[in-house]
């Protein structure tokens, strides 16, 4: 569908999704952002760029990732559901990608852009470390020096990923301001970028930041939704009834949702991190608990106080505790096309263990939030309905966090 009413046409020429998005950056960065927009426009129109991207997706990342019918999980959630209740659950296995998460899709796209633009140095921010690992991976693959900014607290709770990044040749620099998590890492990356504009490409890890980042990250991640659509058509001969994905910045969710936005029969639920509960200050649900504001280059829903000071998010998942959300999600929320729910730390821990035991898959804590909502909604749906949940990362990195939360000594 490409009618004027398409929900897939955004952003507009100024990078706005409705009243969200835009290019709220310091003047030093503005020419770079405009330059990136020009280069991305040219790359999109260049079949050679797409061919290069697709080739790496197939041979380096290992795409397409399977769309897997989770039979035992489906049966598990049918127990205790009403008669004929319990939707059929498919998992989009993006945790099987090289580096273990969806983040690599975007990194491949962005490093190809960096090379097109003649940039010779890569920087990135990371929260859980998945984006940092994916960035360090592509930087190694293409032989570019790479600096990853990571909150000092995240470095502490994600040691395996820190070591992975170092093995891959990246320099991991701790961000020591604020709560020392993803937001602060992003501030540090922006400070680096503004001081190294001549040679540095900033690979932003989620569908947020100044235009054109939300658009290009979405486009690179949309491989998830396009594959899902084709795979489900092959398996079931139809569209899904419900798509579910976790939301930090929201790149895996927008990647899954975007190719389906113009299909009114497809319900979509994005799952924010409710941390210790939405009624506590310790959550990271920007839509449920925030209001529109400007941070990190875009206008979007933010956790903030009455003066516009940013409130730090909390989630057991380091990949979700960002106080903002990609601007396209803010827009999809404001027009009601996508529903946004939340899952607490405890919900996610339950769902994490559920998937381990029913399917023999250890999920990351991020998609465990999506699985918590699958657990909530599947029993309310009929047996012939189909859910696709995005399993956007594997849980190896999280076993220490989970052990601690479960009171297990390792």
């Amino acid at each position, binding site marked *: 569908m490409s009618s004027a009413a398409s929900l897939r046409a955004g952003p507009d020429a*100024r990078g706005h999704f409705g009243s969200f998005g*835009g*290019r*709220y*950056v*310091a*003047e*030093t*960065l*503005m*020419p*770079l952002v*405009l330059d990136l927009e020009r280069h991305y426009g040219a790359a999109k129109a260049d079949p050679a760029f797409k061919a290069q991207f697709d080739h790496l997706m197939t041979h380096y990342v290992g795409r397409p990732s399977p769309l897997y019918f989770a039979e035992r999980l489906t049966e598990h959630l049918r127990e205790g559901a009403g008669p004929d209740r319990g939707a059929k659950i498919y998992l989009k296995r993006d945790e099987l990608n090289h580096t273990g998460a969806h983040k690599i899709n975007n990194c491949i796209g962005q490093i190809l852009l960096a090379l097109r633009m003649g940039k010779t140095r890569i920087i990135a921010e990371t929260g859980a470390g998945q984006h940092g690992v994916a960035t360090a991976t592509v930087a190694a693959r293409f032989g570019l020096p790479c600096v990853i900014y990571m909150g000092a607290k995240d470095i502490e709770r994600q040691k395996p990923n820190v070591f992975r990044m170092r093995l891959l040749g990246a320099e991991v620099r701790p961000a020591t*301001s*604020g709560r020392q998590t993803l*937001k602060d890492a*992003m*501030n540090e990356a*922006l*400070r680096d970028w*503004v*001081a190294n*504009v*001549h040679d540095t490409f900033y690979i932003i890890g989620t569908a947020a930041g100044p235009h054109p980042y939300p658009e290009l990250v979405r486009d690179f991640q949309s491989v998830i939704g396009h594959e899902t659509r084709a795979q489900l058509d092959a398996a079931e001969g139809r569209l899904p009834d419900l798509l579910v994905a976790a939301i930090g910045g929201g790149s895996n969710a927008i990647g899954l949702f975007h190719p389906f936005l113009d299909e009114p029969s497809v319900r979509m639920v994005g799952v924010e991190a409710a941390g210790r509960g939405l009624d506590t200050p310790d959550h990271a649900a920007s839509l449920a608990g925030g209001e529109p*504001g*400007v*941070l*990190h*280059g875009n*206008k979007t829903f*933010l956790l*903030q106080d*009455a*003066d*516009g*000071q*940013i409130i730090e998010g909390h989630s057991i998942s380091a990949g979700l505790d960002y106080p903002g959300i990609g601007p396209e999600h803010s827009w999809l929320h404001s027009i009601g096309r996508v529903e946004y729910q939340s899952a607490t730390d405890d919900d996610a821990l339950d769902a994490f263990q559920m998937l381990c035991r029913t399917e023999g898959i250890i999920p990351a804590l991020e998609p465990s939030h999506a699985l918590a909502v699958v657990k909530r909604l599947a029993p309310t749906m009929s047996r012939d309905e189909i859910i696709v949940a995005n399993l956007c990362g594997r849980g190896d990195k999280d076993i220490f966090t989970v052990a601690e939360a479960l009171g297990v000594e390792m």
Partner: protein
Amino acid sequence: MSAGVTEGRLPAAFARAAADGRAALVTFVTGGDPTPADTAAILDALVEGGADVIELGMPFTDPMADGMAIQLANLRSLGAGTRTADLLDIARSFRARHPQVPLVLMGYANPMLRRGADVFAAEAQAAGVDGIICVDVPPEEDDALGPALRARGLHLVRLATPTTDAVRLPTVLEGASGFLYYVSVAGITGLQQAAQASIDTAVARLKAATDIPVAVGFGIRTPEQAAAVARVADGVVVGSAIVELVGLHGSQAPYHIRSYVRSLSEAIAVSRKELA
């Protein structure tokens, strides 16, 4: 160019300095650092030291264009409980004490836009503020803030940088007023100063493109540096070096700031005469 470009305290301050044959000294401190109660005496020390224009920083949790000195100042201020209402109180009392000294609020978009640009502009105007510098509202997002400021007769001070090329410069100048702030280093506040030759070239380029005063900042900390910049620019902006004095001396900072700012203003006052 917008209306009001030649009216008000801000253009008058630059005109006075020009008539004296010198650049204007523009000084920055973060409001509420170390506490809201300390800021009045710090601002007075800036004026007593010879500052022509005061930039009052609005603290923000995420000052991503700032180096460590101003980051820490933001944290100290917010840690002391500084609210937007305190900043406006500080501005209001400054205006009462110094009816002629221009006061510019400088900060990031989110605290300015939080309750709506119109509310912010109205409150700033009522508090006696002359202009606004917003780090992360570039010309491309002007409608988020610019129209509200212009409707209240507040100057929107725009920034130009080493990356602002000739093609882009007219976009930056469109709607700029008060003065043009040339950020002489592609980087964050408080680090190294740009080479004087590159500043000279940039200022000449900017002055050829606009009639509003051009002030140069980022990395200027010694009287010698300030004097060198003052030979070519209409204004010299000093921020991190003053903010560091606040960090070092806390509520005892006014004494140190007064003598430091005086060393700058004295160097600037004679800089063009030395040249001649």
